[in-house]
């Protein structure tokens, strides 16, 4: 019998993903069953054993149909995205594949390009977002972009400026926005500085520098807190001021979720809480 997170469990979950894989185990966008299996093996180890990830409000992520997960960046690299993807896969039933809108530079890097495409993570283009949402997929967006992952340790739980495109996309495709707050990424990757010149030489925006030098994560506690779905009126053609108001509302929701995560926790066994490594 499959135990959560083992190979059989991962295979069974991939089989239950509501994604139309073709004859070669690849969907129309190039996401592949085989690559997803390997990704979730790795993410599963990190999610359940290396980090201790607590997930709150996973039931707010729709079981099926289109939705946009919108959250903050936490930590010098996109561990937050990986753990949210893992949460939606391991904690949802049926499991869901959260599909991130990634930075363009990632698909220019050998192997990163291959793995991103084969695991359903695509360049953050409006065309990709609209198409995936119209296909009733679950989109994962970090409106802070690379500015968000560049936050230094003292600012780890703050929010920088949000892009506004995600709200227009949600309105256009009539998709609910599920805000989430992510905590612990800054503790896992305590960035004291960013080496922009070195990053440029390596084809990435920057390299995070940690007190111990290397940009490798520590086994920190993490939290993903999903908020109530937000549905706004409109069709995406509204004036900038209207959209800015909706973006501010999403940002406030995320800030509130982060603040909840920072508050002392009365109990780890609250209703709706799921834990990655230690299950209640």
């Amino acid at each position: 019998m499959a135990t959560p997170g083992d190979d059989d469990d991962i295979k069974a979950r991939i089989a239950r993903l509501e994604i139309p894989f073709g004859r070669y185990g690849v969907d129309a966008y190039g996401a592949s069953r085989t690559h997803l299996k390997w990704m979730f093996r790795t993410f599963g180890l990190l999610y359940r054993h290396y980090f201790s990830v607590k997930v709150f409000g996973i039931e707010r992520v729709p079981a099926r149909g289109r939705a946009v997960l919108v959250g903050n960046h936490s930590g010098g690299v996109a561990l937050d995205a990986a753990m949210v993807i893992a949460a939606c896969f391991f904690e949802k039933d049926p499991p869901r594949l959260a599909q991130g809108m990634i930075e363009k530079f990632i698909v220019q890097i050998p192997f990163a390009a291959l793995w991103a495409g084969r695991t359903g993570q695509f360049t953050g283009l409006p065309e990709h977002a609209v198409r995936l949402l119209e296909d009733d997929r679950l989109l994962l967006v970090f409106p802070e972009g690379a500015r968000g992952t560049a936050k230094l340790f003292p600012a780890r739980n703050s929010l920088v400026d949000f892009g506004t495109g995600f709200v227009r996309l949600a309105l256009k495709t009539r998709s609910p926005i599920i805000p989430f707050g992510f905590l612990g990424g800054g503790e896992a990757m305590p960035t004291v500085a960013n080496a922009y010149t070195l990053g440029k030489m390596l084809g990435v925006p920057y390299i995070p520098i940690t007190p111990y030098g290397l940009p490798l994560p520590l086994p920190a506690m993490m939290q993903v807190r999903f908020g109530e779905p937000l549905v706004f009126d409109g069709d995406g053609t509204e004036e900038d001021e209207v959209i800015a108001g909706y973006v501010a509302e999403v940002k406030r929701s995320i800030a509130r979720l982060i603040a909840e995560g920072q508050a002392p926790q009365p109990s780890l066994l609250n209703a709706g809480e799921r834990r990655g490594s230690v299950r209640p």
Partner: protein
Amino acid sequence: MKVLVVGVSSAIAKLLVEQLLSAGHSIEGIDRRGWDKAPIEVHTLDIRKRAAEDVFRKFHPDAVVHMGTVTSLVMPGEERYRINLGGTRAVFDHCRDHGVAHCIFVGRHTYYGAASDSPLFHTEDEPPMALSSFPELADLVAADLYAGGALWRFPELSTTVLRLCYSLGPSGHGTLGTFLRGARIPTLLGFDPLFQFMHERDAAAAIMRALERRVRGVFNVTGPEPIPLSIIIRETGRSALPLPEFVYAMALGRFGLPKLPDGALSHIKYPVVADGSAFKRATDFTARFDATQAMSDYRAAFPPAHATPS
């Protein structure tokens, strides 16, 4: 219907002729390369020459299918430019002057280009954004846009611009068929783009369908869903030879690899995938062959054991 096929010696054009003949149409062809034992009258001449206009004058076609563009990047750029743009202009001028009712320009989905920031599933209204990284495609893009311009320049002529995805089949012709010819296929290490292709018989059937329905406009023509290059290599019985990009770029023109511009590598690095739904809606076209059949027909015609080293 009387149909004139320009560039009739290409593999897909020959299949189109076969389908047109079985449907009872009257066909003539023009091609500089000629066609031995052709089942139709083929005029061995250059579409840009005066004699080509005489074919229009005498045959008086109802419809013209222009498949006479050159895609080979091995041909010098200036010559390609003259053939592709000059030839396309001549076709449309003759159509206008000789009362042709319908002209189909057969272009390629590579019009959209391959780049890290280009979306999957290009729609027909998208501009050719990736031209900057691969300027050698400019003549094909210009020919496509020139043909599209006929929609408003010659309103009395029904114009169809088809952007066909790659084709694959027993003829082994075409960009993808040629690329897969060897036993070991050089690929870019760390990249495995989606490739979109259709069986060559379906490509011909799609053109035939556009003729029958006389659809006006610009359409992407696609078949089965795209699949990664690595799967195509495996299913056609080849093996991949992954090379780092700088090694691949240096090897071009050596070791049996064709001399190609650097921009050509973007087409095995990033996907070019088009959205063919508008054509399907306009014509009810459905591909008869799936990807497996196309790859298996190619493999049968070019078995791996007999594959020549590329």
